[in-house]
């Protein structure tokens, strides 16, 4: 279980190479083992230049996507995981774990402790999951709190030293690179008690615990016969426990009001020491019934020093917070649109912001617009072919608002107007963006009584909640729209 090499590559479309290796690290002792284990099927780790070229080609990130290239585009070269074989100098380097995120390509090559021909199944290669964890760890480190390029550069320059701590020989010791950063900054003094490897020091100060629950709601609304609208809540509970002692024991509970929607698909942080079987088995895969476990959801844990995601969950609330329909019809040279949005009465009518984005893809710039709206203002981005309906902080008393109008477009110019493979013809959507503070759709909350701390001193508990929209689509009901299998189950 080790990595032979790791790379960070920035994707720079339009430049001659389309990318630059920003960081790379090789592990020669692992490489030596790879040569023995892989035997005749061994392919050495290439230098950065050839690797960059082969990886960008395989990920289709080179600019020359114009022609059919069999070694990339053949229908038999099906890749179903983020693990690739790269053709370099006539040999295939495999497995290369790689993914693109925020214009950085994260890549590594895990050691396979056997021959590569025939290829063993990925599930049997222990280094694959470690490779992913390694890359996610680097990604977290680079992007946590990072605002601009110079910060990114600073963090990139810290990587060699950090990896000397977190992964000195290719075997990852800690995916949380911030721990290594703390380790290098101040060495901890010998502790009499066992110190967890994921906790590099101890907290000194006032005890306090903060819990924040962020729910994202996504939805696909079609307003159509035979196709069900779908929506789902995804929750993330983030905690920061500032408590003295090496291993303070804490139990955090999440509660639901009586009419709350049960939490499902709960994934917990590894610092949670035990889990109730009801939590482990409550799952969105099963049909819902009234007997579903509805809390309280107790998580006994030993918290790490830094802020961590205590758990993720999903939930199926009975109704979507905003129900809408969108009708769009092509009438000769113009589009006629009608939009209706209704806020459900149970939802807190106090938004930080709420707006509907109405994009028009694969068309020219907006040249003419006539509209009537019952509420809010409309902003027009002519060149981007986009309308933004700013609804504001509150829905009106009726809870229902509407917008109708006609839009005319100019000639298409490919550079400026966006292309979209889905919104063809009248297939179109509007997307809602909103945020409500101090509110969760499931009703899930944490309060003063939710936290039990088995350590000296009573901590100050602070709890936060918010609801954010994410992928909240309302499709034009007058045209075909992409559906998921779930939408067909009525």
């Amino acid at each position, binding site marked *: *279980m080790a990595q032979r090499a790791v790379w960070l590559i920035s994707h720079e479309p339009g430049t001659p190479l389309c990318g630059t290796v920003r960081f790379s690290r*090789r*592990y*020669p*002792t692992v490489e030596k*083992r790879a040569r*023995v284990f892989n035997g005749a099927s061994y392919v050495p780790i290439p230098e950065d230049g050839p690797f960059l070229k082969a990886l960008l080609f395989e990920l*289709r990130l080179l600019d020359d*996507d114009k022609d059919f290239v069999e070694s990339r585009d*053949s*229908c*038999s070269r*099906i*890749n*179903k*995981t*983020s693990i690739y074989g790269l053709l370099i100098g006539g040999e295939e380097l495999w497995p290369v774990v790689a*993914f693109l995120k925020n214009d950085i390509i994260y890549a590594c090559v895990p050691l396979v402790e*056997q021959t590569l021909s025939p290829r063993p*199944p*990925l599930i*049997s290669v*222990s280094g694959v*999951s470690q490779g*992913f*964890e390694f890359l996610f760890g680097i990604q977290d480190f680079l992007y946590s709190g990072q605002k601009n390029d110079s910060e990114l550069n600073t963090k990139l320059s810290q990587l060699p030293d950090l990896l*000397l701590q977190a992964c*000195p*020989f290719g*075997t990852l*010791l*800690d995916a949380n690179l911030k721990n290594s950063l703390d*380790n290098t900054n101040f060495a901890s003094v010998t502790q009499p008690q*066992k110190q*967890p*490897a994921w906790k590099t020091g101890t907290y000194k100060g006032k005890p306090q615990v903060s819990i924040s629950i962020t729910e*994202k709601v996504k939805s696909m609304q079609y307003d159509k016969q035979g196709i069900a609208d779908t929506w789902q809540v*995804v929750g*993330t509970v983030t905690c920061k426990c500032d408590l003295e002692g090496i291993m303070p024991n804490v139990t955090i509970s999440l509660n639901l009001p009586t009419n709350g929607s049960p939490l499902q698909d709960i*994934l*917990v942080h*590894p610092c*949670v*020491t035990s*889990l109730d*079987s009801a939590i*482990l088995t409550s799952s*969105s*895969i099963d049909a819902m019934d009234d007997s579903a476990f509805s809390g309280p959801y107790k998580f006994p844990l*030993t918290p790490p020093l830094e802020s961590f995601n205590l758990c*993720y969950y*999903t939930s199926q609330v009975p109704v979507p917070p905003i129900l809408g329909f969108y009708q769009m019809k092509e009438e000769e040279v113009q589009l006629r649109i009608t939009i209706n949005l209704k806020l459900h009465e149970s939802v807190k009518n106090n938004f930080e912001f709420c707006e509907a984005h109405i994009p028009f893809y694969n068309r020219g710039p907006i040249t003419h617009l006539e509209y009537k709206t019952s509420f809010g203002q409309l902003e027009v981005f002519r060149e981007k072919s986009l309308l933004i309906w700013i609804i504001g902080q509150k829905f009106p008393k009726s809870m229902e608002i509407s917008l109708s109008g006609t839009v005319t477009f100019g000639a298409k110019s*490919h550079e400026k107007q966006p292309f979209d*493979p*889905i919104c*063809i013809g009248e297939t179109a959507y509007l997307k809602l963006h909103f945020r409500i503070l101090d509110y969760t759709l499931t009703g899930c909350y944490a309060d003063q009584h939710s936290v039990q701390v088995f350590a000296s001193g009573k901590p100050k508990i602070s709890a936060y909640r918010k609801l954010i929209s994410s992928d909240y689509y309302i499709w034009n009901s007058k045209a075909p729209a*992409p559906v998921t*299998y779930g939408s*067909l189950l*009525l």
Partner: protein
Amino acid sequence: MGPLSRDAWAQRLGAFRASPSAFMAGPEGEDLGRDLLGDLRSEKLNEQTKVSLLALSLEYPAQLWPDVSAAEVAATSLLDTLVLLPPRPSALRRPLLLAATTALAAGGALGPTSGASCRLLPLLLGLAAGSDLGRGFVPASEQRPLQATACECLRELESCKPGLLGGSLGLLRGLLGQEGPVQPLSLLLALALRNTLVLQSRVGAGLGGLLTDKVSPTGGGPWDWTLVEEGDGRLQPQAPSWPAAEEGEGERSLTAREHSPEEARELRAAVIQLLDTSYLLTPVAQAQLLWLLGWALRGLQGQPPALFKPQLVRLLGTAQLTLLHAVLALKAAFGEALFTAQDEALLLRRLTLAAQHPALPPPTHLFYLHCLLSFPENWPLGPEGEEAAPLLLGPQLCRGLLPSLLHDPMALLARLHLLCLLCAEDEEEEKGQLPSPRHYLEELLAGLRQRAALDEGPRALATVCFQASYLVTRCLAGQPTVLTPLIHGLAQLYRVRPMLASHFVDFLDQVDSELREPLKVVLRQEVVSRPGRDEALCWHLKMLAKVADGDAQSATLNFLQAAAAHCTNWDLQQGLLRVCRALLRAGVRGGLVDLLQVLARQLEDPDGRDHARLYYILLAHLAGPKLGVALGPSLAPPALASSLVAENQGFVAALMVQEAPALVRLSVGSHGGKGPLPVLKLQPEALEPIYSLELRFRVEGQLYAPLEAVHVPCLCPGRPARPLLLPLQPRCPAPARLDVHALYTTSTGLTCHAHLPPLFVNFADLFLPFPKPPGGAGLGFFEELWDSCLPEGAESRVWCPLGPQGLEGLVSHHLEPFVVVAQPPTSYYVAIHLPPNSKLLLRLEAALADGVPVALRTDDWAVLPLAGDYLRGLAAAL
């Protein structure tokens, strides 16, 4: 050269990293390793620069110190530098330890005879044990980090030389029990324990007191080179042959080994000790521990896998990729012994939800999907090593894992695979059950084609459409309800966007004939139904070159005739000619002759005209099968990546005669010519089917007139062939050697030439009888011949030995046709005509028991020695 400045080093390191091979080949390459070691002790460089030098040595030891002795020298130098550090905190101690370890392990210098190894190992073990190394070697603030680093170094050495720390197990266990750093010691102990278990079992030994002895029994330090040697330097895989875990009884018996109750108890205690504190490890380290211990204990008697059970619930609840993966590894290692059917179901459910959980990143989803389709089931039904949906993963569980157009290509393909597996299982699908997976699949494919048809769409959209179609054809072969709409959908896609022709050609190359043949038909119809000027003409021609065959000839030819007028540039003309070529290969003749003639005259480009003419000539002169081969793909890889060269090589292979080993054998049968000339009877025999065989003979020494070639239409092995008659026209009556060549066509259509072994014409093969005299006056006739030989001729007497059959047997066997006067069993007069015009007369009379005196006369002196040899050899030939 004096020490370099900080900037000079930064520049040098930058140049090296840009391309290590280029740097090492340059003028500075040779000195880099030496300079680096030297400058580590320079007082002019700050610690940060030195750390960057060490970092380089951690990555590229093989370039800096390319052989074992250089690595040894480097490690020694690094250790010296470490010892010489002043007794105050320094950022160099950790990287120096790492660098020395890397240099030894990567350079292959690690071993009992290496001085550096013998210095490094005690140092590392001392540091790991937290013992006082004296002289303020380790400042107090660095003690703990160095302890951890030393453990890591030891672990790396143990990984590269399994068994090295076999003697230190007791020591490490003791340290773990005290206040040593938990994670590095746990991982080190787990690895050393695993390696020791594997190696000891290989030599049939038990653990002995290894787990309890604090000091090694071997003396000379706790490292165990003997165990390393027993391991034969073989590295230990983490999960040996996972796929075979379920059925690998052989593997199991290899690892099955007995431990004494005491050993088993100690081992269990050590494992429990490791597992109990495992929550103190980072998640990735916990995962490593589980992989190591799981596969170490597998098949070990007295070590119930239930030891792992307390960890499982905790692990199943997490979202950590490494932890869930490690649970799957335990599942694969222990199967039902650790996971009941209910546990298996729970694990599958957790995996299913992790594969779609919105809070996890897409690469994780994809990996979990892979794990689902490769899930180590307790009782797998399907074939080994093939992706399949586990039995417990019913349609209900899969619902959220089905693809939609909104997924990115990889997720779409991964989920599509699952959908296909569902459709394949779902053959006895309930009617009216909505929505049927198969119907959903069809809709999805239609959506993909619609996207691929977009004019401005990137190629990736087309690629994913064809990949999805290919996946479907592979999973659902033999299901016309799926394939028929697919074929028509693809034809429609071609109609809308012919520029995807390359994808279609590739698709046709990859799929089975079940789909290929009907798809070819509809695509051909698509193309030929739209003759005339078209922007997509080049794509149509490309498509047609793939799908044109003997069917629908006239439509295809009409299309080409119409297209010819628009083929104004070289590209289009070549495209057109490629279609002609495909038609030629398919055996189309009729209208094609006319078309080629027209093209040979009309095409603007001389190259195009030449090609057309060539095809025309080939068509006019070669038979169908031969033409097919001539135009088939070249057997030899083209020397140049040019179609013309490739084509020419194809012609060369097909139209030229190939030298080949003889696929035909000839043997000479009994002679027996009745006519005016001796005739050689040949029996041919083929080793492979051959056609149009032509046998050519050449007589050495021009003893006979040139021989006619013999033709055989076809020869098949195992099928008796008619004997071939080869008339000889001797110019003088003498035996001869015939040189034989064969020219034939193989079943693949190649013309071959082979040199066969020579044939020998014996003296007796030339014998012809004299025409029988009228009236049966044999004696008179013979006497007349006898007398006519002299005086020009020759006379002789020869002793002809007789075998057990006596004279009668000899005559009847060899000379029967030539006997003119016979008085059996005592007297025979024999007259032999030797073409062109010699005679040989024999009187065999008064035989004795062991021989017969033969009086012979001939009119040709030259025959005499031949006749003598012949007669003397007769008895032996009997």
